[in-house]
């Protein structure tokens, strides 16, 4: 499909707050980005009118109880079926930060056997509390997450994290088995790395939250539902990068662009 005909739905709830920069990134790529309050979507139930579904970052409903939990329950109740249908069409679903938490809470991620009725993993409280800092994440996917095929394997993206609960963990008795499964099914997409590209191996602050196995983002077995904690939308433009005054490229794009471009290109080619 033509790029200018791609419709991106960015849903928001009270407390969603990374929508501005996410909309800006998609619009810069020439697609139509629609920011819609979830209450409206609950009424319209028109998810299939859109080509990409995004849950942006923020603190939905204050993230009381557990990050993303309240919005996830509300969505499950109001449009759980419609989201599942959307996922089944193979169209991309992306959860950034709070959006990742929502996708975990709704059971779409990791979704080993399809959507699970309750969360299988957790994005638990950080080792060092709430942190807004720049990290590096490496694309370690082997191609299952098709929307990221435009991001070369091994590519490192520098971008910020800004969360208090993003420590990816799995049930203790299943951790090893599931990690293997994540690898086998090519569901591991992003891991935190050091400045030299080597894995953070749990060291802080390169791994900013203490996530197991430095996991920053995963996708479902089908590859079309993707969630991660860092914010590439905040690294979209050159002037947002941490050392742009030194490296001198304020008018160029930043590290985050390749990520969004890949998604848009994928939809262009596939649908």
């Amino acid at each position, binding site marked *: 499909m033509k790029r200018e005909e791609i419709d991106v739905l960015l849903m928001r709830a*009270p*407390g*969603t*707050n*990374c929508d*501005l*920069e996410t909309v*800006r990134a998609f619009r810069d790529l020439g697609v139509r980005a629609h920011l819609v*309050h979830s*209450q*409206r979507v609950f009424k319209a139930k028109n998810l299939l009118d859109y080509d990409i579904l995004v849950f942006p*970052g*923020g*603190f939905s*409903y*204050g*993230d009381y109880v557990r990050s993303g939990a309240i919005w996830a329950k509300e969505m499950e109740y109001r449009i759980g079926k419609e989201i599942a249908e959307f996922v089944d069409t193979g169209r991309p679903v992306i959860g950034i930060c709070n959006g990742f938490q929502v996708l975990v809470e709704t059971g779409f991620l990791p979704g080993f056997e399809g959507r699970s009725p309750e969360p299988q993993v957790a994005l638990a409280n950080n080792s*060092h*509390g*709430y*942190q*807004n*800092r*720049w990290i590096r994440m490496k694309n370690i996917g082997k191609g299952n997450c098709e929307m990221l095929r435009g991001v070369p394997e091994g590519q490192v993206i520098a971008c*910020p994290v*800004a969360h*208090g609960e993003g420590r990816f963990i799995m049930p203790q008795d299943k951790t090893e088995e599931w990690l293997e499964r994540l690898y086998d099914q090519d569901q591991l997409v992003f891991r935190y790395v050091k*400045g030299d590209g080597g894995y953070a191996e749990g060291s802080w602050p390169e791994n900013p939250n203490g996530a197991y196995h430095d996991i920053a983002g995963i996708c479902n077995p089908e590859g079309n539902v993707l969630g991660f904690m860092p914010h590439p*939308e*905040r690294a*979209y*433009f050159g*002037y*947002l990068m*941490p*050392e742009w*005054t*030194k490296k001198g490229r*304020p*008018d160029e794009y930043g590290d985050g662009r390749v990520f969004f471009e890949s998604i848009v290109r994928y939809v262009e080619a596939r649908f």
Partner: protein
Amino acid sequence: MTRITRSPHPFEHHEVDLLNASDDDLKEIASTLSLGLSLDELRHIRDGYVVRERKATDLELQTYDQTWSEHCSHKTFAGIIHTPQGTVDGLLKTFFMSLIDELQPEWCYSVFEDNAGIVDFTDEVGIAIKVETHNHPSAIEPFGGAATGLGGVIRDILGVWADPIACTDVLCFGPLNYPYEKLPEGVKHPRYIFGGVVDGIGSYGNSIGIPTVNGATVFHEKYTGNVVVYAGCVGVIPKDQYIRDVKPGDCVLLVGGRTGRDGIHGVTFASAELTEESEEVSRPAIQIANPIEEEKIKRALKEVSDRKLGSGITDIGGGGLSCGVCETADTYGLGVEAHLDRVPLKATDMAPWEIWVSESQERMLLAVPPGNLDEVVSIFHGEQVETTVLGTYTETGQADIYYEGVILAELELGSLFDPPKLERTTNWVPPVLEEPDIPEPDDLGSVLLSLLRSYNIASKEKVIRRYDQEVKGQTVVKPLQGWNAGPNDAAVLKPLDDTWKGIAISSGINPRYGLIDPYWMAASVIDEAIRNNVSVGGRRISLLDNFTWGNPEYEDRLGGLVLASRACYDVGKAYGTPFVSGKDSLYNESPLGPVTPTLLITALGIVPDIRKAVTMDLKEAGDALYIVGTTKPELGGSEYYALHGELGASVPKLEPEKNAKVYARLNEAMDRGIVRACHDLSDGGLGVASAEMAFTGDLGLKVDLSRVPVSEEMRDDFMLYSESNGRLLVEVSEKDCGEFEALMGDSVFARIGSVKEDKTLRLEKKGELLFELPLTKLIGAWKTPLEDPR
């Protein structure tokens, strides 16, 4: 007491007989109703009711109490002050508003007349800015006090129809290692307050999704009993959406959270000293924060503002509905009729007067023409925000307040907003201070490491990382520079998608200079704020003043306040930088005595092209390093003296005319793209600034102390750690040195060193090595000390 009688209505309501009330009667009435009014004010009110020939009601007296509180009416800044140098008829008028008349800055769009100051940004769009204090609540309940402080100042920005885009916070605490056994009853430990305040600000700002981009964290003994919390907010407002056109018949629309018993008499509390009973007595004065409610209001207001559906707006803050409702009516020369039984409540058994003065958070008051009401209401409901039509604006010039159909207050707004002018006398006596006799150290390098480790200089990363600094994707120069997270002098934002134009936000504050001389303290912090702004490329600077002072009823405290205000006028005029907004917090007294006189200056500058913004990290080996400005033996109040437990007397002074020239020339050099890095010299002077530039850029630096321009011969340690104003370090490429030097012309400047590949800071004097320290050691010292606020 017989003068207060309960009315026959089925709700709590009293009539108060003021006729022939003696001073003792008045005092008793005030105490029974928990009013903070002075005897003079009570007499003034009594005389009004004698003329009206009727009894007062509790609701009316509460309204006077709120409206005339120091917090709401700023009576110290409005009053008449007799000083040994003559009489000042209003500090605000004489020293701040007069600057606007004299400088005539055509880019000041709306100043000193609304919730926030508004200055031009582009032809169509203005920038709104406001900084608030929330000291008293934060001393009692650090988390809630700080969170609601931020929530309140964001509402000030919403209260001029603007969309908030960034926050600032400046926090002053007692030493974190303050001995527990020295804490008097009722004073909480700085460690506890520090953790709570930082958490409160982070929690509110992060949840509502507005980045905190600039600030400072300051430590001093004198803040132990009086924590200082400044919270600021900046917003964007298309000028044609700044609507202030309330007409009779417009609806009074209350939107947002429900009204509860949290925050009763907050302004009265804020206008009194803290005592050991404050905890118990004033706990209900502290509000409870709900950032998500405000986030929803913000979304809805943006749409109402974009579609120009309202005719007026204000936030409900200090004084609650009593201030918001009456003030808007008075501003537009109108009257108002409001029905308190319509207000949605958190607790259903609230008395009408409690509803009237409650300062429950996350509420805004809109004036809406009746024809637009349905649309406005549906916008708020779309964001899941409750709305209530309280009544209408009228032509009467009077506030008529009803509850269940019964009229509880008939307030003449004219008299309500004409409080008796306060008259006070000052006598500031300069403290007796002398210069300490500090032996000249053998090892200047270890002094530098100690300075980098001192709490006021050390990295505030552990605080700053608690706040989202870049949500919204507009923070171009962040508070922490690069991967090494060095201290940038100011933040630069790119507020609009369609222009490279940006804004620079900086601040200046000093905890010690005020103990020596409030005049030079004020002058220095203004220069620091401006210097910081210039350092990233800011110009056409607007200033905001926020005073945190002791009880102005003491002559010495008030005398210092007058001196500091006079400095604001003098320096503001010399720099051509008008004040566009301000706020004072007085009565900062605790069992440990008064707060150190503290003025926070916030500076808002324009950056014509953010692509030319400058950061403080060294960029490339081989570049030249310049210093601009003169170094003088001004160590009074310096970090260096503080290291030796001394205050001293030689507080830095200021030559604004010379500096203004330097700053303009630096702006020009930046526009030409020949300034690669720039960093202001403040706490810790040349030594600390050089180290910060080097370790942030991860490049070595060689400095020759003998080349530094000085006012007179002085010791090496003084030269290295003096905090003289008007100085900056500038990195310039070798090829641009000629152009830079020509540009700087007759200003004082000198090439003092160069950037080098090997990662050390090397200090020399005429080729002789003073010290050489590896960057890892310097950054290690700088990054380690501050405890995690958690």
